[in-house]
């Protein structure tokens, strides 16, 4: 596992937050440093993820697809099979253990795709905590099903109406809440970003992914994979998939960012490639941010709400500077193609985020030979994104169904009101 140098990874990382948040970060860091080398704590964490979330998740060979592409043997690490449908729950369950030890009774979280918010709402229900989830108003529309479930689970979902109304603003707003509530509230940061110790802490919990990949590769492939590929939003699933391989220089690590519509400003969320992100300090940490010359954070776009973020894990910023991680990107159309290819050839419905890793991975796999092995981290499942995916593949029968359902739902609400008025 990578360790920070006093919160820094090379030139990136650090802890740039309003003074009021420092004690909580220090408390968290002390607790984390105390626990992370304690094998009993790791075992407690593993047991929780096993009992509750079904870990270890399998490593699935894509036999038909690999054959069809004609290159490397492709394997999927199945984080989509986690409870709640994505890798995000790993981190959240780990932080849940910390919250219990700190004795806090309330948590807050920011969420983009809603996946981290959903995981947080789940953990909060399980542990009996109050949860408030901040989510950009535009993301709420994009990922309404997750919002629906968060609310059903008892979480308070707050739509953030400022700025571009996506993840960046949700994170700002969560920090504002935290500034007022820090003594009783834990901030469950959802990715390997933000002020120290979050990048390190989130990567620590997510590293369970690569520890399993390593073991499974030895058993199922008989050796380490040649490449491990993951999509990069904030960077938590990528750090999860990469961590255990950092010292295995024969394993190439590839992070795929959201190439969006084009590499024009505002049309993508690529931060690690030349000419995209620039060093900056915001949202509590230093990393490569999409920003203008005045240091204002930029607009982003991705077909996947969970990749639509202006910053990136300082650890990945560092590792791509050192060359250990190879950054690449996939465009929206490459992503929808890969989405359909996986679905129709292997019967697995990927999250749009994960479909970026697929698109990037498939392209590379074709250039590899049949004796090589590639593991792609399938960070989440796509069936949670039905509205989103229906938008990517417009079909008349879906539209018509929505119209009928909207009518039925309106009738039902009206009937409900009528009963209440009468009663």
């Amino acid at each position, binding site marked *: 596992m990578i360790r920070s140098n006093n919160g820094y990874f090379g030139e990136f990382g650090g802890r*740039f*937050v*309003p*003074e009021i948040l420092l004690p909580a970060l220090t408390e968290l860091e002390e607790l984390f440093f105390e626990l992370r080398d304690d094998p009993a704590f790791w075992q407690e964490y593993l047991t929780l993820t096993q009992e509750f979330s079904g870990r270890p998740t399998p490593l699935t060979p894509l036999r038909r697809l690999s054959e069809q592409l004609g290159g490397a043997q492709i394997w999927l690490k199945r984080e989509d099979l986690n409870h709640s449908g994505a890798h995000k729950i790993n981190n959240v369950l780990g932080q849940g253990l910390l919250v219990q030890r700190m004795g806090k009774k309330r948590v807050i979280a920011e969420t983009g795709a809603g996946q981290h918010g959903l995981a947080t709402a789940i953990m909060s229900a399980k542990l009996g905590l109050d949860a408030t989830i901040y989510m950009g108003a535009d993301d709420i529309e994009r990922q309404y099903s997750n919002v629906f479930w968060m609310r059903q689970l008892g979480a308070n979902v707050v739509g953030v109406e400022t700025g571009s109304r996506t993840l960046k603003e949700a994170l*700002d707003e969560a920090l504002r809440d935290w500034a007022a509530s820090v003594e009783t509230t834990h901030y469950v940061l959802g990715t390997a970003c933000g002020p120290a110790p979050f990048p390190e802490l989130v990567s620590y919990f997510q590293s369970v992914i690569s520890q399993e990949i390593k073991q499974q590769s030895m058993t199922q492939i008989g050796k380490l994979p040649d490449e491990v590929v993951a999509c990069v939003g904030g960077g938590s699933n990528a750090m999860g998939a990469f961590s255990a391989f950092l010292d295995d220089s024969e394993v190439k690590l590839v992070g795929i960012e959201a190439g969006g519509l084009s590499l024009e400003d505002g049309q993508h969320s690529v931060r690690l490639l030349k000419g995209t992100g620039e060093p900056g*300090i915001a949202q*509590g940490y230093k990393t490569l941010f999409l920003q203008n010359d005045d240091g*204002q954070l930029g607009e982003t776009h991705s077909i996947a709400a969970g990749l639509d973020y202006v910053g990136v894990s300082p650890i990945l910023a560092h590792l791509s500077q050192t060359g250990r991680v190879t950054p690449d990107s996939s465009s929206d159309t490459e992503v929808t193609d890969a989405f359909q290819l996986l679905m129709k050839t292997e019967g697995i419905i990927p999250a749009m985020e994960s479909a970026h890793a697929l698109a990037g991975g498939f392209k590379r796999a074709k250039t590899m030979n049949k004796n090589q092995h590639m593991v792609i981290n399938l960070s989440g499942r796509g069936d949670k994104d039905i509205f989103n995916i229906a938008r990517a593949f417009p079909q008349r029968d879906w539209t018509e169904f929505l119209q009928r359902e909207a009518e039925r739902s309106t009738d039902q609400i009206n009937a409900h009101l009528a009963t209440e008025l009468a009663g």
Partner: protein
Amino acid sequence: MFPKQNDALQVMSHAVIGFPNLAENEKAIDGLVAAGVNLIELQVPFSDPVADGHTLANACYDALKQGGSVQATLDLAEKVCANHPDVNFILMSYLNPLYRYGLQALFDKAAAVGIKGLIIPDWPVEEVEPWLPTFDDLDLSPIMMVTPNTPAKRVERIVNASRGMVYVVSRMGVTGHETEWGEAFEAYLKNIRVYTDLPLAVGFGVRSSDDLNAITGKAEVAAFCSKYIEWQRHDGSDIAAEKMKTMIGEMKH
């Protein structure tokens, strides 16, 4: 000049550069000075103002659309520092716009145009300390923030890195909400005085004459910012200045 310990309470107020627009900033500042304000924060608008409540955050978003920027702030500072040599202008900014400008260049330039102090809410003391010799050379005062949950040892470290005054965050949270000024607040200030002779500027939740009166005699500066920006937004800069004048006139001394 910054006040000295036990000076009568002064009001510090605020401009967000570009809000409501660049042309109006200068007029608004003239109005504040005419109303008797001697300490004025010039805030560089930022896309992600995490320490600010919605009033200042929205002002930032609007200001950016009007061309607010580091450069615009320096340009304005140059003018207003020249026009009002007795007023202390303080550059308030999140770190990133300054970082992108280049910190050394920015500090040089700020000092050169007449800026006296710096408030950078997301720049922790550990990162500030290496710059203290530079600041002292430039006669640029880093005004560091202490908060109610800052542990004693850290208060000491922060006030030691502060110059000009110490910014006392009155309560948990962000700017723009109300605060209670009870005994706990007094004890809080007293604990800070243990470590410093610098004047204390109280900020967050100073929103009325009553608030000012409650602070009188306890601290030397009251930051009256969000509420002033609300006046500016709703009533325009002229009426905002009048209200400020009335309020300062009503202050107990």
